[in-house]
């Protein structure tokens, strides 16, 4: 088998399901190289199973972590310490509310945590709002795609809380604004940058103004329920039904 030509090994591997491919990577270095070279193991298509989950509460306390009793060593490691190591590092865990999560990373207030490796990083101070957007509140999302890049990005999207829709802002402002300025932090550059988004739909799309938004009852949720990072694009559902990508 040592002399099995590389292209034949590739042909054989191409017939295998992901679980067998994962085992083949562990056979020897040449086989791992063959699996990786063929791009055969698409980690974005791998079967993920739930081994545990965090639950955040409205109480000022650290999020709880739940796991299955039989779960893997990784999950046990996470549960063993919850997020208390943050406190050891000087992070006030009373404000450790989970703002967002993506592919194993947690976004807390001004901080990103990988519970599996117990590593965390503090985000640099937020940049000031760009011109004409002073006074907006921001919702944070995290985007991380380990199969594409080892770097994560934190995105801050401006929004107006329902309580401030009256009075403080000009009811005639179109929403989402076009162009729409968002703030993006990349762990690669370690900097916050402004990104300009333009509206994709044409004139035919229904325009909505801040004034119109008063009709929506529920406050623009600051939880992460309405932001999804999928296939390298961040989808955010706005209160008025707009989808920001």
């Amino acid at each position, binding site marked *: 088998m040592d002399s099995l030509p590389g292209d034949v090994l590739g*042909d054989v*591997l191409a017939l295998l399901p992901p679980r067998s491919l994962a085992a*083949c990577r*562990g056979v*020897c270095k040449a086989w791992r190289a063959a699996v990786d070279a063929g791009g055969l*193991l698409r980690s974005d298509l791998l079967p993920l*199973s739930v081994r545990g989950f965090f639950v955040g509460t409205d109480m000022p306390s650290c999020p709880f972590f739940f796991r299955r009793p039989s779960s893997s060593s*990784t999950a046990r490691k996470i549960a063993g310490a919850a997020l208390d190591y943050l406190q050891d590092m000087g992070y006030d865990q009373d404000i450790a509310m989970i703002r967002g999560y993506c592919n194993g990373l947690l976004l807390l207030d001004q901080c990103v945590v990988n519970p599996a490796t117990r590593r965390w990083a503090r985000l640099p101070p937020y940049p000031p709002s760009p011109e004409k957007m002073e006074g907006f509140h921001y919702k944070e999302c995290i985007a991380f795609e380990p199969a594409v890049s080892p770097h994560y990005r934190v995105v801050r999207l401006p929004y107006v809380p329902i309580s401030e829709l009256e009075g403080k802002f000009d009811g005639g402002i179109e929403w989402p604004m076009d162009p729409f300025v968002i703030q993006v932090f990349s762990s690669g550059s370690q900097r916050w940058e402004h990104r300009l988004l333009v509206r994709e739909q044409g004139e035919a799309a229904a325009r909505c103004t801040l004034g119109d938004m008063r009709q929506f009852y529920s406050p623009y949720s600051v939880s992460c329920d309405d932001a999804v990072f999928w296939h390298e694009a961040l989808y955010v559902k706005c209160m008025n039904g707009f989808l920001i990508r």
Partner: protein
Amino acid sequence: MEVDKGKGEAEETRKVAEADRDTVTLKSSDGKLFEVSKEAAARLSTVLAGMIAGGSIDDNGTDLKQIGSEALENVVDYCNKHANSIPSAALISSSISFNTAPFKEPEEWERKFVDRLSHDALFDLVEAANFLGMERLLDVTCHKISEMMKGKSPDQIREVFNIKNDYTKEELEEIRQELAWAFYDD
């Protein structure tokens, strides 16, 4: 001048005679001779097809120094069996639907053909099929080998294929962590 011309004619006659034969003779690395249907050889092996078209087939046995007699016997056996087998409807239809040639499941007789082989014979046959550019035989043998890998742990695969583990303990643990889901049965 006359002599040269005569020799040329003789050569010509011999070539014509060879082209008329409906089998070709192949010689293994250890000197054994095998006869195989020319039509099947040309259809199943791109390398043999090229040799037949290019006239480099030797009547006294075309040398295939890379292939041992056991593997060559299996190759010839496969070609002859293939020549006799009626292709199933599935094979015909799938061969025209895609130009990327997706893998077609082995036929019943092909499955039996590779199932009876020892590991060593199977691996030698894969190499021979690869060398001779026999796409279908390569598919069938690769399919068999992949079946032998399915559901096995890295340790078991190493044992079956007689592969030396060149990882350190730390590297193995890292690989396990990377794809931890593959190593648990929940």
